[in-house]
C-alpha cells in the first residue's frame, strides 16, 4: 500500500496544530479529548507503534498539567510528541484523564508513575497505585506547590555540622570566607540570561577567593 | 607403643596439621595475589583471621544441629589428620588403611552439610547440593588413584607405601599417568576456582557459609587449613615417597598444593554438570590407562 504522507493523517484530527516539524521530530499540540484518536490514527495508519514515554509538566500558574505523549516510528525514524493540556484540579477533585493502555501496553507504567508523582489518575489504567516511593504517603512530590526543602527542614533534625576539626581550622582563620548562599547566588550562573552578568559574577567569586587565600599566609 | 607416645601423637598431629595448613593457606593467597599483581596478605594473616573469628563477641546459631555440624566438620578432619602418617608419628596411622582415610574425608563434608541444612537458608542448601555433587565428581578419580596405588604397593596402609617407595623409586616415577590423574582429582578435592561452584559468592552468597558467623566461620577456616594439609601430605605419601623427616615431607606437600593453586586462579568457575563431566572424563581415563599398565 503506498505511503500516505504524515501531514495528511495529522490534519484529519480536529483541533490539531503542528507547531514544529523536522525530518525526525514532529511536535503537535492537540486538545485533550481528541488525543486518543490521534494516537490511534498514527498507530494504525502510519506505523507509529512505539509509545516511548508520557511526561507531565505542572503549569501551576495557569493551573494546568501538560501531558506529552512521545510516539516513535521505526520505519520513518521519526518521533511525534503530542502535547495536550488538562485541568490541574485541586485537593477536592484530583486531575483525571483517559488512559491509553488499550492502545499501548507500556502506558501502564508511565501512567502509574505520573499518578504517583503528580496525582493525575488515568481512568482505565490497570494499576493506579504506588510505584517507586513505597515509603512515601505524603503529597505527590513533583507538584510545584510541594516545597522539598521545607519538608526536609521539618522532618530531618537539621543540626549544623561543625565538627571540632573545622572549629580549629576556622580558629586559625581558615575555613570558608564566602557563605554557601552567597556563592550560590553570586556564582550561580546558569539562570543568568546574558554573558555580561555571568562575567561580573565570576569576577566577584575570584575576588572572594583571593581574600580567602590572603588569610592563608 | 606406650601411652605417652600415643598422647603426644593425638595432640601434636592435628596441631602440626593446623600450623602447616595455615602456612599453606597463606601460600595460596600469596600465589593468588602475585598472579593478580598484588602484594597479598601479611605473613600471619590466616592466624589473624582465625583468631578474629573466634574472638567475635556475638555469634548466631540456628540450633543444636548447626553447632554439631561444625563440630563434626572440625572433628572429622582432626580424626583424619591422626590417621595420616607423618614422619616420626605413625603409631595410630597403622590402625586404619587408605580406604578408611578416604571415608574419614567424607565425614566432615556430611557434618558440614547437616549443619548448613539446619541453617534453613536455601543458598546454603543449594551450595551443599552442589558440594555433594562435586564430591561425587572428584571422588571417582581419587578412588581410582587410591586403588592403583594400593594395588601397586600391595598394601593399603600408608606406612607400607612409604617404606616401599623409600626402597624403590617414587610412586610418580613408576606410575606417571596415575600421578597426573591424582593431581587432577586433587584440583577437584581442594574446591578451588575451576571446581569452586559450591562457594560461588556471586550466585549463592558463598553457598554453605552463608549463615556462618564468628566461631562457626572460624571452624570452617580451620577445616580449610586441614583440607589443604591432608591433600598435600596424602598426595606426597602416595606418589612422592613421603619424607623420612619433616624437612623432606613439607616441601613436597607445599609443592603439591602450590601446583593446583596456581592453576586455579586463572580459571573461571565451571557449572555443576560440567564439573562432573570433566572430572569423570579426563582423570578417570588417565587413571584407567595407567591401571592397565600396573595390573
Amino acid at each position, binding site marked *: 500500500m503506498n505511503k500516505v504522507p504524515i501531514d495528511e493523517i495529522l490534519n484529519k484530527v480536529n483541533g490539531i496544530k503542528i507547531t514544529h516539524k523536522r525530518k525526525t521530530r514532529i511536535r503537535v499540540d492537540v486538545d485533550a479529548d481528541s488525543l486518543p484518536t490521534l494516537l490511534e490514527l498514527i498507530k494504525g495508519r502510519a506505523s507509529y507503534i512505539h509509545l516511548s514515554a508520557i511526561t507531565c509538566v505542572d503549569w501551576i500558574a495557569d493551573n494546568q498539567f501538560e501531558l506529552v505523549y512521545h510516539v516513535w516510528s521505526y520505519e520513518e525514524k521519526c518521533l511525534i510528541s503530542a502535547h495536550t493540556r488538562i485541568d490541574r484540579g485541586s485537593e477536592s477533585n484530583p486531575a483525571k484523564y483517559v488512559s491509553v493502555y488499550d492502545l499501548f501496553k507500556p502506558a501502564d507504567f508511565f501512567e502509574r508513575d505520573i499518578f504517583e508523582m503528580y496525582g493525575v489518575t488515568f481512568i482505565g489504567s490497570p494499576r493506579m497505585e504506588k510505584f517507586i516511593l513505597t*515509603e*512515601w504517603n505524603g503529597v505527590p512530590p513533583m507538584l510545584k506547590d510541594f516545597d522539598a526543602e521545607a519538608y526536609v527542614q521539618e*522532618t530531618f533534625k537539621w543540626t549544623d555540622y561543625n565538627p571540632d576539626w573545622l572549629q580549629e581550622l576556622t580558629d586559625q582563620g581558615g575555613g570558608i570566607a564566602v557563605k554557601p548562599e552567597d556563592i550560590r547566588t553570586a556564582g550561580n550562573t546558569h539562570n543568568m540570561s546574558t554573558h555580561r552578568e555571568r562575567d561580573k559574577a565570576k569576577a566577584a567569586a575570584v575576588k572572594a577567593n583571593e581574600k580567602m587565600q590572603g588569610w592563608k599566609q | 607403643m606406650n601411652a605417652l607416645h600415643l598422647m603426644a601423637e593425638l595432640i601434636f598431629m592435628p596441631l602440626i596439621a593446623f600450623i602447616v595448613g595455615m602456612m599453606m593457606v597463606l601460600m595460596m593467597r600469596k600465589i593468588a595475589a602475585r598472579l593478580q599483581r598484588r602484594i597479598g596478605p601479611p605473613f600471619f594473616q590466616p592466624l*589473624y583471621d582465625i*583468631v578474629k573469628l573466634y574472638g567475635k563477641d556475638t555469634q548466631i546459631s540456628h540450633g543444636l544441629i548447626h553447632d554439631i555440624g561444625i563440630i563434626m566438620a572440625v572433628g572429622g578432619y582432626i580424626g583424619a589428620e591422626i590417621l595420616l602418617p607423618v614422619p616420626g608419628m605413625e603409631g595410630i596411622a597403622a590402625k586404619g588403611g587408605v580406604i578408611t582415610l578416604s571415608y574419614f574425608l567424607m565425614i566432615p563434608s556430611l557434618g558440614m552439610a547437616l549443619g548448613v541444612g539446619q541453617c534453613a537458608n536455601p543458598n546454603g542448601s543449594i551450595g551443599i547440593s552442589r558440594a555433594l555433587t562435586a564430591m561425587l565428581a572428584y571422588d571417582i578419580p581419587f578412588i581410582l588413584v587410591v586403588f592403583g596405588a594400593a594395588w601397586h604397593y600391595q598394601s593399603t596402609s600408608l606406612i607400607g607405601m612409604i617404606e616401599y617407595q623409600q626402597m624403590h623409586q617414587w610412586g610418580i616415577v613408576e606410575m606417571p599417568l596415575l600421578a597426573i590423574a591424582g593431581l587432577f582429582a586433587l584440583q577437584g578435592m581442594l574446591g578451588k576456582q575451576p571446581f569452586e561452584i559450591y562457594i560461588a559468592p556471586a550466585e549463592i552468597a558463598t553457598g554453605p557459609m552463608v549463615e556462618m558467623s564468628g566461631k562457626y566461620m572460624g571452624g570452617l577456616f580451620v577445616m580449610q587449613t586441614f583440607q589443604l594439609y591432608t591433600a598435600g601430605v596424602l598426595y606426597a605419601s602416595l606418589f612422592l615417597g613421603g619424607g623420612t623427616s619433616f624437612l623432606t615431607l613439607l616441601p613436597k606437600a607445599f609443592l603439591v598444593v602450590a601446583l593446583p593453586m596456581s592453576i586455579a586462579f586463572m580459571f573461571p568457575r565451571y557449572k555443576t554438570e560440567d564439573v562432573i563431566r570433566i572430572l569423570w572424563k579426563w582423570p578417570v581415563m588417565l587413571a584407567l590407562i595407567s591401571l592397565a599398565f600396573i595390573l
Partner: protein
Amino acid sequence: MKKELKIIQKERTNPLAHVFDDFISFCQSKSLFMLHYCTGCGAIELPPAMTSRFDMERLGIQPMVTPRQADILLITGYVSIKTLKRVILTYEQMQSPKYVIGICSCTVNGGMYWQSYATAKKLNEYMPVDVYIAGCMPRPEAVMEGLQRLKDNIRNDKKEHKGSAWKDYFNRYDYYLGNQQALFGDDWQTPTDIIAEAKLYDLETEETYGKHTKLLEKHQTPLLPQEMRIK
C-alpha cells in the same frame, strides 16, 4: 518493672584477660571482612581499592558477601528511605564487633541530595558510624586512609574507645529506634531481636529502654527460636 541495669563498661578481673584482650583486638585490627553495601555511586571506588594498585588485602581486609561473616559495613553513597530499611536490617544481621564506614558525603549530611524528600540525611542517626570518608566519591587513597584510620581506632580501642561504637547501638538503642520509627512509622520492626541480644551479651544500659522500645513491644511479637523439645 525497670530492671536494675548494669554499668556500661564491664571490668575484666583476671590479669591474663588484658594480655588476651590485647591479642584479640590486635588480630581484629589486622583482619577485617568488608561488606560493601552499594547503596549509591560510591561503590565504584572500591574495586580499585581491592585490586592491584591499592591492594586492600595488604591491610588484611577481604570482601565478604553476607552480613553474618562481615565486620565492616561500607555504606557507599546516598541512602534512600527505602534502602535505609534494608541497610538497618543488614547492620543488625552483622555480628559485633562491627564497624560502619560511611563513604561519600551523602552519608555524612545528605550530600548533594540534602534537600531531597527521599533520602536519609545523617547515617549516624540510625546506626553508630565509626569512620566517615567524605568526598563526592572519595578517591581510593581516601578510602584506604579511612580504612587505616579504622584499623588504628580498633588497635587502640582500649585507650580512646573509638573502636567500639557498635556498643552504642545496644547502649542507646532507644535513641536509634526513635529515629528509625520517626522515619518509618511506629510499627517498624526487624527480625533480629536487639533487646534480647543486648540482654544476652549484657550490653544494656538505662538508655537501651525508653519510649520507643515500649512502642516496639506493643506491636512486635519477638521471633522466638523454636526450642528442640523431646516430648
